[in-house]
């Protein structure tokens, strides 16, 4: 039940809705800071150039997959196939992109085209994206297994080189995260077409009546999901050096969790690229380094992800109640 805003106007200070909104935007950064403080407390040596490079290594593909998921969530859809898609891209990258670069590039571009076509299909036939993408998750996994029945392949050398870059002062994963967050933030939050894209999630009818094509915005967003899915798969292979058809399976749920942790909402086009990247980093850090330092057995790593989600969402629920917007 949505209750209309009853906040009296003119309230200021710590209890004002504006402050609550600010707090809400700060929440992803806050949870990441808390995790970092916990890690620093448990193992001070981890807070170093080398430590961050190691702990955040896998955060790059997770962050890219999270951004990919964020694009579809912006237009009120959900992609349950992003994990197997990342696995498929990883297999293509470790085989064709290395041995026959032209073919590899064509296949990857084609797969982005498939994503765009899915967007059109889902919009034109008014299909539930959950089911279509669940079906597609089988398609990607099947293709990946056909391509690479057994774990193997090898990442192209330039990719290996790129992923093991050691820039001065700032570890590569942090640099990459900042670049990803800023680029997407600028594109989606600061351009006029970005506002139209988010508007499709907020009020599709209004956007349509303003003369924009909903078909085009949906196709754009699905294609962007494909682009970032491809980037995620390539980054993943660059780190693991070889591929496996099941490599990305866990990313589907992780990516959804990352978007939500980062302040995104399932409906209404309310997303935050910077928040999503922070959410992905939080999950990447909390999933294994933090637990290892706390000497918690790996059995409970998945639970830690669930618990973090619940705690952050509980905090957000408290803030939102104050914000008075729901």
């Amino acid at each position, binding site marked *: *039940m949505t209750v209309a805003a009853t906040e009296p106007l003119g309230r200021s200070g710590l209890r004002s809705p504006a402050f609550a909104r600010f707090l809400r935007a700060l929440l992803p950064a806050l949870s990441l800071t808390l995790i970092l403080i916990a890690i620093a407390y448990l193992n001070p040596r981890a807070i170093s150039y080398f430590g961050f490079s190691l702990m955040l290594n896998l955060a790059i593909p997770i962050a890219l997959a999270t951004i990919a998921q964020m694009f579809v969530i912006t237009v009120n859809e*959900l992609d349950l196939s992003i994990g197997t898609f990342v696995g498929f891209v990883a297999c293509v990258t470790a085989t064709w992109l290395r041995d026959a670069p032209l073919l590899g590039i064509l296949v990857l571009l084609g797969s982005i085209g498939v994503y765009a076509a899915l967007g059109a*299909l889902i919009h034109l*036939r*008014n*299909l*539930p994206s*959950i*089911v*279509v993408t*669940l*079906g*597609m*998750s*089988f*398609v*990607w*996994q*099947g*293709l*990946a*297994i*056909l*391509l690479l*029945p057994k774990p193997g392949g090898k990442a192209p050398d330039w990719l290996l080189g790129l992923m093991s870059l050691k820039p001065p002062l700032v570890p590569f994963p942090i640099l990459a995260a900042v670049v990803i967050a800023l680029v997407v933030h600028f594109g989606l939050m600061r351009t006029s077409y970005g506002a139209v894209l988010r508007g499709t999630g907020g009020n599709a009818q209004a956007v349509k009546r303003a003369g924009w094509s909903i078909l085009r915005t949906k196709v754009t967003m699905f294609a962007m999901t494909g682009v970032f899915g491809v980037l995620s798969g390539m980054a993943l292979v660059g780190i693991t050096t070889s591929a496996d058809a099941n490599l990305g399976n866990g990313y589907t*749920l992780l990516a*959804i*969790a990352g978007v*939500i942790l980062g302040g995104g*909402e*399932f*409906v209404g086009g309310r997303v935050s690229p910077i928040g999503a990247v922070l959410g992905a980093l939080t999950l990447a850090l909390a999933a294994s380094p933090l637990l290892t330092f706390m000497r918690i*057995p790996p*059995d*409970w*790593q*998945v*639970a*830690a*992800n*669930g*618990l973090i*989600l*619940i705690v952050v*969402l*509980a905090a957000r*629920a408290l803030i*939102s109640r104050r914000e008075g917007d*729901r």
Partner: protein
Amino acid sequence: MMVLRALLARPWIWSFIGALLVWLAAISFTGGYGAGGMITAALSLAVFMVIVGIGQMFVITLGPGNVDLSLPANIGLASAVAMKVMGGSDAMILVGLVAALTSGMAVGMANYLLIRALRIPPIIATLSSSFIVHSIDIAYGRGLQIKPPPAFADFTNIQFLGIPILAICGVVFAFLAGIALQRMIYGRSVLAIGQNMRAAWLAGIPVERIRFLTYTLSGALGGINGALLAGYFRGASVDIGNEYLLSSIAVVVIGGTSVAGGKANVPGIWGAALFLVLLLTMLNTFGVSAGIRLLLTGLIIVGVITAAGGQKALR
């Protein structure tokens, strides 16, 4: 003719036609060999999809965004709980079933609690709880190698004239679920909430109580399914419920239930479950590799959904 036309107007008939076509394709490939065996095998596997599918159907009918993603973890945990409590002894079968049911209901209640108390969207609430349940299962069921009690394993495998007893129970259960959906206050309330939650609330339907019941029901069915699966496959495992994330949603949607909520269909779940299982059987008899099988399964699911079409948007 009238009967035929009335049948074709039913949304659920298409899933049965699909199942029939797939079966015909499979037996024409084998030259009629194993036609009956295929149906027996399909029935005994489809019933597991039906049990969780019905729970998922009630949840999905509650309206957009309502879906239970915790079923795989829930099924896994319940299978371990059931096997541990039964301890391989026939005397403990009933206690084990009750324990699995309780474990499932607890997961369902926890889901609802997260949705209600933290105002989390159901997708993310059931997702977070599934992470936690999954971990509990890994820790609890580690190295678990308890066989189901002989009588219980027999019950889940026994057949009557080539029809698994479990499938007969499944049909009866689906029939009861259909009555609950269309003829009882509970089911009508679920439908009303799915059509318009605010209108249902204004009409005096105890919305939150119904939502609580629905998530608990879905959890309970997941729990029972876990116990039965452990009996059928002769042992519990963490991954035993994995495939039911997709199939529970797929059978509901292919069976003619609206993802937008407010419109549900019970017979279609049986048709869709048979369709999915026979589809796999067909691809197996064709002798295709695992990759091709996954690829075709995915394409067919997308194709069926596209052909069935979405609902016209309500304005």
